[in-house]
């Protein structure tokens, strides 16, 4: 379908801006592996302190890029399936807020005024601008969602007999969950932290800010994986040359994410003393529950791929795997999908370890955790973002992509890199390597009294993986920006592969109606968060403190 010029420009900005920032994000990621492995024994390189770089790496890659992509991919999917564009006010306003918000964040991070990483870490204080910028980015994504809901109801009025396509259900589930989960973080940012950073209030209740953050922080990780899930269900079967094994299973998996994503945030706080163990056990059960939709996806997507292989004449148990379109330049998207899926097997399993109540204590805040989430966010999420950014840009701009061979091998190279990086981090983590630490200054520096030789081999493997990932990313940036310089040869369009369903299944009314699921989600959120907040107020006290990262004295005492 054809697109209007304004919509096209908005979407292209939404693809190009975060991808340009991603260069900085990737650079800082590679630098961290050099610091940690002890190649660099210093606080800062080229004016960027380790912890400042870590903040950029986290905020740009995990909040800015993923949120922009979810919004652009949502616009693209909804327009493709409904054959109509969202209202102009919604996409323009949302993009303006998101661009300004992330620009503010970028400036304060580069100036080193916000090195509080992305968990906000009160009472370590970042600049108030950082809190405001992040809030703008999140609120911007809400506005885009409001525009989609509006055209969805218009479309439903025109086509009362048609059901919600799976791709739209996935997008709506994702943004409904995101909206519910980001209310607490907006409250934290604008009501608690901004006045506190400006000096209007002195007290901050640290366990409460942490609980509010993780109420958002865990759904955030599903927010960046769900676009990939939508792709796995609605695009991959078609790209692989098969059909979707079961549409109802896809719908059920997506709806399970809606109810189980938000209540499990407390599992990031298993080792904090402000929440009772009984609540943590309940959250552990729910966290195991949230692995069910991923198990379902593994089956459904696997079965769809097997069907595609058998259609090409594969026999036996495993031959279908070799009959898939691996490494085909005319079908480069397949590599981005399949590599993400392979990484996600290990990402998911290591995630179950983190969510397992007491087992979490072996791995909490060690290298194991970044090892785990680099196989999820740097696996399916980023690979899907990279592949789809190329694909959407090509269609929206009408520019040809010339480096076909390069973009075909990038995902495989990236996967080798992630595997090594994650292996090194996880192995090191089990030996006690702390995360978020500039180990090159002390623990992996032979001259330091704190030197620990056990952590050298594991962090070296991590560095090799990081360098390979960096190489793959560099190749990607060259291909992407080369495409930007090409002249448009086709008219801008919006189109995407749409998978058909293999079986003609019975309709299940419960899977076609989001309302009961939303109500259930609110009940489950209450079941974990009402007791958690009660606990936080019972066991914790607000503190009068405010700190900068390089000064151990309390700023509030200095002001008095």
């Amino acid at each position, binding site marked *: 379908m054809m697109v209007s010029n304004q919509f096209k420009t908005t979407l292209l900005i939404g693809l190009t801006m975060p991808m340009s920032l991603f260069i900085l994000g990737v650079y800082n990621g590679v630098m961290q592996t050099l610091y940690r492995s002890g190649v660099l024994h210093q606080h800062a390189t080229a004016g960027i302190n380790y912890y400042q770089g870590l903040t950029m790496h986290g905020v740009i890659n995990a909040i800015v890029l993923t949120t922009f992509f979810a919004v652009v991919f949502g616009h693209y999917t909804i327009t493709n399936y409904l054959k109509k564009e969202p209202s102009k006010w919604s996409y323009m306003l949302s993009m303006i807020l998101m661009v300004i918000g992330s620009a503010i964040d970028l400036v304060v991070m580069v100036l080193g005024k916000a090195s509080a990483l992305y968990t906000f870490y009160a009472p370590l204080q970042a600049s108030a601008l950082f809190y405001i910028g992040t809030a703008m980015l999140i609120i911007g994504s809400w506005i885009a969602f409001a525009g989609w809901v509006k055209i969805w109801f218009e479309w439903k009025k025109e086509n009362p007999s048609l059901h919600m396509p799976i791709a739209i259900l996935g997008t709506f589930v994702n943004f409904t969950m995101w909206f519910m989960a980001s209310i607490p973080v907006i409250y934290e940012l604008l009501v608690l932290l901004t006045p506190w950073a400006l000096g209007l209030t002195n007290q901050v209740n*640290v366990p409460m800010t942490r609980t509010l953050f993780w109420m958002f922080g865990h759904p955030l990780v599903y927010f960046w994986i769900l676009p990939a899930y939508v792709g796995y269900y609605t695009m991959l079967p078609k790209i692989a040359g098969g059909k979707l094994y079961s549409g109802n*299973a896809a719908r059920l998996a997506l709806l399970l994410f809606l109810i189980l994503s938000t209540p499990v945030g407390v599992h990031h706080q*298993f080792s*904090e003393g402000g929440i009772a163990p009984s609540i943590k056990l309940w959250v552990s059960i729910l966290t*195991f529950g949230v692995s069910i939709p991923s198990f379902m996806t593994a089956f459904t997507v696997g079965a769809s791929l097997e069907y595609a292989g058998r259609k090409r004449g594969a026999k036996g148990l495993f031959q279908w795997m070799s009959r898939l379109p691996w490494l085909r330049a005319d079908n480069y998207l397949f590599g981005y999908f399949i590599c993400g899926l392979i990484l996600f097997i290990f990402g998911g399993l290591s995630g179950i370890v983190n969510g397992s109540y*007491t087992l979490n204590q072996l791995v909490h805040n*060690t290298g194991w955790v970044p090892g785990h989430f680099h196989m999820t966010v740097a696996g399916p999420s980023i690979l899907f973002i990279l592949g789809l950014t190329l694909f959407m840009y090509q269609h929206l701009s009408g520019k040809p992509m010339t480096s076909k061979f390069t973009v075909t091998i990038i995902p495989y190279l990236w996967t080798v890199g992630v595997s090594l990086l994650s292996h090194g981090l996880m192995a090191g983590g089990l030996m006690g390597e*702390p995360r978020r630490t500039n180990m090159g200054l002390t623990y992996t520096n032979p001259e330091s009294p704190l030197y620990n030789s056990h952590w050298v081999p594991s962090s070296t493997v991590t560095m090799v993986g990081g360098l390979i990932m960096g190489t793959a990313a560099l190749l990607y940036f060259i291909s992407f920006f080369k495409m930007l310089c090409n002249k448009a040869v086709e008219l801008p369009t919006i189109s995407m592969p749409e998978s058909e369903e293999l079986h003609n299944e019975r309709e299940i009314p419960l899977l076609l109606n989001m309302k009961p699921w939303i109500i259930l989600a609110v009940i489950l959120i209450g079941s974990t968060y009402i007791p958690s907040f009660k606990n936080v107020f019972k066991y914790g006290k607000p503190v009068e403190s405010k*700190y900068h990262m390089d000064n151990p004295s309390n700023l509030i005492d200095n002001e008095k």
Partner: protein
Amino acid sequence: MVDKYELRAIISSGVLLSLFFFAVLYNSYSRKIDMPTCVPFEKTFEKSAVKKIDDGLYEIYLVAHMWTFDPEEIEIPAGSTVDFYLTSKDIVHGFHINEEGVNMMAVPGTINKITTKFEEEGTYRFVCNEFCGTGHQNMMGKIIVK
């Protein structure tokens, strides 16, 4: 209709999750591997101390602040059971003894408690594993078990 392959997949993932969950419960309740527990916040916990309660029973009040632990070196006899009480004076810190599987957060305004037993002689290093500013990588201490 659920087809037979789907049903098998559902049953096997259900069994797998139940096994995992059984393992979690077994370790918590039969082998007494504990979570950190809550103690209501009191200002008195912000004074560090190593208290001998009885033979082989110690209470250690640890205070984390930018960028040292207080106390930094602790000596205890082998076979002691230790209650760690942990808090922070300024920002969020971590406390991790890898060999013991002790891993908890020091959050200002809360107290964290965990119990562990030091069977073997030797030097146990503990590190801060939560970002706490530019000196974070220097924050480490030792428990010497004799």
